[in-house]
């Protein structure tokens, strides 16, 4: 009876999660959706504490106190520019928790000495493997985003072969453990192998491919939770884990499509291992010339335009210039200029990164446009302003079949009457490809830190 009741409560929690996610389909209802989902979680936790036969309160109390404190501090103090790191860490903790639960269950079975039924054995292995891989992989992703580890793709000879050997070895150990369940050494082996695999599989992936990696790790953390659900025979975990797994997969797919690359290419292609230096800050390559303009000219151009489209990229996050951008946009709007923002799906370091940054600066979300919505608008735009974006606006993607960027959908900033590019130097973007846009006649470069440039632009517009 109690068992049935508990299961119904878990089902209620899962239903609340689904309603919560459904409400994320519009920014207007999203916040209440998040509250519904947290209510679901609260119900699940309380029901577990009340109805499951909990004996050892000390461990639970310590774990919950420490976890809540750390999680709360993270959530309150993280800067919006640091959100990709935060999500990477959260993915890691989720995966880690699932792996730990599965390991603990293994030791419980071992202690009971009745052997481990095959189906639970499989689930335990999968949960430990995916969870541990998610944990260490996320830590590396975090390190890369926080720049504790180099953001470039790290490659070494025989990398793929070695990864393959580790993968096969780990799976071999997992299978061995199912045949010989009473040997904990095999479990330790699986743990070590999965941990290694997490590190070696994320380390060759470069910084700008992080949106894909984070989405994929997000999916893994969900699948690990679902596997744990198989281990402890709990439908609530299975449903919720599957939801998260699906969510991460969808995002992974969107990110890959936005780069016109397959998942395999992102994961194993070691894209961006070398970044060539092409020309100095005002240097030119060959017979190509670059025009730069003064802040005064740029301000005049913007102030007398009918429509201005801002196109932010990772450089905006690095320069933390989102508030200055908004301030300038406000001034332009007061002068009757139509201001829009063009957001490429892979701009920044995680899905939706730019949207969150601009939302933090109080940019209304109805001014943010997706690639498909904004591209038809560029021909009617007087000035497009590119802020620290590079590969996602490179016209080479449209016509140069030899370029690694070929075929990637881009924002058509070059179709506006004028294009102003804010950039620190002529360094190419992540793909290591020189950007044609910079040499076009309609393009003017505004060199320097984006935040400083915007401050100067604001001053200049004020004087007009």
């Amino acid at each position, binding site marked *: 009876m109690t068992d049935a009741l508990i299961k119904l409560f878990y089902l209620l929690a899962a239903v609340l999660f689904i309603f*919560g996610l459904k409400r994320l*389909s519009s*920014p207007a209802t*999203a916040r209440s959706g*998040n509250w519904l*989902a*947290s209510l679901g*979680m609260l119900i*699940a936790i309380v029901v577990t*504490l009340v109805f499951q036969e*909990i004996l*050892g309160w000390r*461990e639970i109390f*310590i*774990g*919950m106190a*420490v*976890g809540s404190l750390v*999680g*709360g501090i993270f959530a309150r103090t993280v800067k*919006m520019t640091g*959100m990709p790191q*935060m*999500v990477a860490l*959260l993915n890691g903790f*989720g995966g*880690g*928790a*699932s792996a*730990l*639960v599965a390991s*603990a269950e293994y030791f*419980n079975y071992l202690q009971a000495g009745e052997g481990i039924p095959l*189906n639970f054995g499989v689930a335990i292995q999968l949960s430990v493997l995916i969870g541990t891989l998610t944990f260490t992989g996320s830590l590396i992703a975090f390190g890369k985003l926080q720049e504790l580890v180099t953001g470039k793709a790290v490659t070494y000879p025989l990398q793929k072969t070695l990864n393959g050997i580790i993968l096969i070895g780990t799976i071999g150990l997992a299978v061995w453990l199912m045949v010989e369940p009473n040997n904990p050494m095999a479990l330790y082996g699986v743990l070590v192998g999965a941990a290694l695999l997490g590190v070696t599989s994320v380390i060759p992936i470069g910084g700008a491919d992080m949106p894909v990696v984070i*989405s994929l790790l*997000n999916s893994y953390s*969900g699948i690990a939770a*679902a596997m*744990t*659900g*198989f281990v402890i025979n709990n439908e*609530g*975990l299975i449903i*919720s*884990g*599957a*939801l998260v*797994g699906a969510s*991460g997969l*969808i995002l992974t797919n*969107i990110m890959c499509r936005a780069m016109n690359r397959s998942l395999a290419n992102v994961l194993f292609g070691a894209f961006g291992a070398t970044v060539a230096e092409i020309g100095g800050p005002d240097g030119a390559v060959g017979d190509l010339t670059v025009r730069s303009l003064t802040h005064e000219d740029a301000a005049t151009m913007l102030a007398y335009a009918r429509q201005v489209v801002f196109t932010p990229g990772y450089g905006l996050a690095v320069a933390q210039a989102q508030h200055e951008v908004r301030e300038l946009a406000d001034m332009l*709007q007061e002068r009757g200029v139509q201001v829009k923002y063009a957001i490429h799906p892979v701009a920044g370091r995680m*899905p*939706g990164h730019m*949207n*969150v940054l601009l*939302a933090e600066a109080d940019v*209304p*979300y109805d001014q*943010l446009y997706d690639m498909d919505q904004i591209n038809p608008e560029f021909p009617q735009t007087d000035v497009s302003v590119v802020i620290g974006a590079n590969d996602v606006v490179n016209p080479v993607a449209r016509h140069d079949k030899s370029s690694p960027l070929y075929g990637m959908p881009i924002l058509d900033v070059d179709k506006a009457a004028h294009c102003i590019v804010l950039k620190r130097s002529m360094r190419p973007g992540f793909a290591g490809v020189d950007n044609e846009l910079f040499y076009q006649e309609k393009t003017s470069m505004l060199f320097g830190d984006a935040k400083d440039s915007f401050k100067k632009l604001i001053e200049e517009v004020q004087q007009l």
Partner: protein
Amino acid sequence: MIEELVVLFVIFVLAIFVGFEVITKVPPTLHTPLMSGSNAISGITIIGALIVAGQGETQVAKYLGMVAVAFAMINVVGGFMVTDRMLRMFKRKPEEQK
């Protein structure tokens, strides 16, 4: 035993379809809150953590469970709070401009 597993597997597969249906409708603007929010939901593994920590059939399981509770709680509390912080920032254009 196998029947039980199959039932769970059916639930798993159907839930993935529900996930695809619901999440396809989330606009790109909300992709970051979607990730942090779904992250918090994957903290549901806390149920398992509480059970192994609380029922504590072995010392090892107890301590592993305790760490798992802490990890999952970071996920849950951090995930939901940071999602709320982000979603609070998403605002519409003030009406007088229309």
